[in-house]
């Protein structure tokens, strides 16, 4: 079964539908599936619900899908870097379901692992708990959160072998493994494709079983906030 595709558009061929639920990896602009986002913009698919920790920035990452108004709803923990997001949200054009960051990550992992619901203390007694079942364990309240079962996952890894076994680099791993796991189909973009055997089987972060289609491409890897120290501080 050939998993390697020639381009993002080819890899997404037949997978996109209006109103679908897409889980996307990345944190801020770090480790985001840039190429697949561009291809989704090109496709014109609309009314998307996207589960992603953030929604990019104005004009980059998932922000591009805001500019084209292809997103109906976001499931995110933090959307503060994006003026267009705020505009669409405050004007009622865009729905937003806030998820605490850890709850969002766990909901994705749970969906990928066949767990439809789990209890967490996160958000108990807050707006986040509204409408959610509360259950006591050991005399303390926990709320029920549901697994996310996405129609499609779009993620970015550093290197993958042709069977989909892959590794991430530093903090670019972030939401990519849980996002990859929770999709019926997972499409992954990488910086390098290698042959099976080139990755040490003990070093693989996400086994190929979770990855259905792979593309390689050039990434801009834009930095959101360049912060440095001067050499004198050393």
């Amino acid at each position, binding site marked *: 079964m050939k998993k390697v595709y020639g381009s993002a558009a080819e890899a997404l061929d037949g997978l996109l539908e209006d109103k679908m639920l897409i889980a996307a990896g990345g944190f801020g602009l770090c480790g985001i599936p840039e190429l697949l986002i561009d291809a989704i913009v090109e496709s014109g698919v609309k009314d998307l619900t996207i589960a992603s920790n953030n929604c990019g920035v104005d004009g980059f990452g998932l922000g591009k899908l805001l500019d084209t108004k292809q997103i109906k709803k976001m499931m995110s923990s933090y959307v503060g870097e994006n003026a267009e997001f705020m505009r669409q949200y405050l004007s009622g054009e865009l729905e937003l379901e806030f998820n605490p960051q850890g709850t969002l*990550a766990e909901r994705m992992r749970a969906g990928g692992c066949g767990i439809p619901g789990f209890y967490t203390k996160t958000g108990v007694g*807050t707006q986040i708990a509204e409408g959610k079942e509360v259950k006591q364990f050991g005399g303390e309240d926990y709320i029920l959160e549901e697994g996310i079962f996405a129609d499609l996952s779009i993620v970015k890894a550093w290197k993958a072998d042709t069977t989909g076994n892959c590794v991430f680099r530093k*903090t*670019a*791993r972030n939401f*990519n493994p849980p996002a990859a796991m929770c999709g019926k189909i997972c499409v992954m973009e990488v910086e390098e494709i290698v042959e099976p055997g080139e990755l040490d089987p003990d070093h693989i972060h996400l086994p190929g079983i979770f990855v259905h289609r792979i593309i390689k491409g050039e990434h801009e890897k834009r*930095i959101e906030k*360049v*912060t440095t120290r001067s050499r004198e*501080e050393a």
Partner: protein
Amino acid sequence: MPWDRNQMAARAAEELEDGMYVNLGIGIPTLVANYVGDKEITLQSENGMLGMGPFPYEGEEDPDLINAGKQTITELPKTAYFDSAMSFGMIRGGKIAAAILGAMEVAENGDLANWMIPGKLVKGMGGAMDLVAGVGRVVVVMDHTNKHGESKVLKACTLPLTGTGVVDRIITNLGVLDVVEGGLKIVELADGVTEDELRAATEATIVN
């Protein structure tokens, strides 16, 4: 004279003990790292890193290496990377000894509000709700009053909550208060700040 940002950060650093795994929030809490001295503190960044190092030298920024504030950072010899599910596993699972966080409001029962002003600021809670629910000790560092001179240390929070009864200690420009039975207890006054000044700036019940 009330403490400035750096003095607040230095005071917050005294909360940390050798061997602790700690999560520092954005703003003043980030400065705490500058004041840990010889203590062996390991900083967790909730986007997937233990053992966070300082900012990189100019030209050495790595787009794959950022902290939870999206700032470029560096790694240390003891660094380990992991995914977001694992990261919040250790947070929710109580493996982080302390979190030092900013706040918009804190109430005398330990309620914390630091993520939303309805109709105005709707950025999201990020990892704050998980942190306050999961870590062993939550220390808030913030100015005692807002721009309008109104107390941020309240009988009850007015803004949407981040967590209920989660704050253990509050460090402000005026001093240090602990959340105890019945209200807040003054632990320490900033240099030159009188107890009366602190009480005047505090809406919350102060107990002895």
